[in-house]
C-alpha cells in the first residue's frame, strides 16, 4: 500500500511540475488577443548609386525608381529611416539642412495616404534623425504596391572625398 501511495505522490509531483511551469505564462487575469494577419513587403531594386556628386545639388533616383510589393493581408503603414553616413575614413554628418560635410536624403512615393508622402516626385519626406521612423505610406491598402524615390541633398562643401554609404530601412506594420 505504501508503494501505491508513493506512486500516487510521484504522479502528483509529475503533474505539479508542468503546472508550475505554466504559471509562468500570461498572468491569469491579463487578457492577450491577436487577430491572425500577415505582414509582408519586399522592395526592388535594393540599391541606387548616386555616383560622383557636386556640392549643393539634389541628384535623385528618378521618380518611381523603387517599388514596394505589398503582400500584407491587412492595411499597413510603411515607415522609412536610415542609419546615417559612413565613409571609409571620414563620414559626412547626417542632418538637415545641408552644411559643410553635412547632407541628407529625402523620399516620396505613391499611396502616401493622409499622413505619408504627398505624391510621386515631391521628395517631401526627409529621411532624418537617425533611427527615427518617418511615415512614407499611411494606411496602405491590401494589394497596393507603391513606387517611391529618393533625393540626395549634398553638402555645401566637401573636406574629403570618401565614398559615403547608408542603409535605408522600410518598416511595415499594421495600421
Amino acid at each position: 500500500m505504501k508503494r501505491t501511495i508513493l506512486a500516487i505522490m510521484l504522479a502528483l509531483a509529475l503533474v505539479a511540475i508542468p503546472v508550475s511551469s505554466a504559471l509562468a505564462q500570461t498572468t491569469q487575469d491579463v487578457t492577450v488577443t491577436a487577430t491572425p494577419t500577415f505582414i509582408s513587403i519586399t522592395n526592388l531594386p535594393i540599391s541606387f548609386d548616386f555616383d560622383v556628386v557636386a556640392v549643393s545639388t539634389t541628384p535623385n533616383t528618378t521618380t518611381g525608381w523603387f517599388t514596394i510589393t505589398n503582400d500584407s493581408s491587412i492595411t499597413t503603414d510603411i515607415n522609412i529611416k536610415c542609419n546615417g553616413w559612413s565613409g571609409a575614413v571620414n563620414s559626412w554628418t547626417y542632418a538637415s539642412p545641408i552644411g559643410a560635410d553635412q547632407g541628407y536624403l529625402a523620399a516620396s512615393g505613391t499611396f502616401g495616404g493622409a499622413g505619408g508622402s504627398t505624391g510621386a516626385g515631391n521628395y517631401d519626406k526627409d529621411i532624418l534623425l537617425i533611427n527615427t521612423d518617418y511615415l512614407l505610406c499611411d494606411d496602405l491598402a491590401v494589394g497596393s504596391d507603391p513606387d517611391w524615390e529618393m533625393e540626395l541633398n549634398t553638402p555645401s562643401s566637401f573636406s574629403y572625398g570618401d565614398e559615403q554609404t547608408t542603409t535605408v530601412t522600410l518598416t511595415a506594420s499594421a495600421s
Partner: protein
Amino acid sequence: MKKLILLIAAVVALMLAGCPAASPPVVETLEPPPELYDKVWISPGKVNVGHFYAGARAEWPVTIHNGNDQPTEFSVTYKVPGSAEEGYVIAPEEAQDWIIIADPTPVLEAKETREVLIALVMPEGATAPAKKWEFWVAVRDVSQTGMVQTELACRWLVTMK
C-alpha cells in the same frame, strides 16, 4: 487507506481542474495564402494586452516565415514605434527592459515557419508610460544586402488595469 488514496486522487483532480493557467494560450491561426510561401512574412500584425499591471506577465508568439531558398538568420528586437495608435502613448526606449524575446536571432531553414515567444514582464513597482501604451517587435532578415532593406513589425497595444 482506500480513503486516503481517494482523497489524494480527488486533490489531483481538483488541481487539474482548478489551474486554467496550465493550458498554454490558444493562438488563433490562419493558413497563409499560397502566394506568401516564397515571401518573408510575420504574424500577427497586432497584439492587444488588456488589464495589465506592474508585476504581471503577458505572452504571445510572433510567427516568422522564411520565404528564402536558403537558411536565413533573422533578428527579433524591441522597437520604439514610428507612430502610435490613437489614444496610445509611444513606449520609451527603457521599456525594452520589460520585453523578453525567447530567441532574438533565430535561423530558419528555407521555407520554414517558426514561432518566437515574446513576453511582456513588468516588474512590480514599475510605472507604465501611460494608461494605454504601445511598443513594437521588429523582425529583420539580416542576410539582406543593398542600400534599401526591409523589416516587419508586430505592434503590441497595452492597456493597463
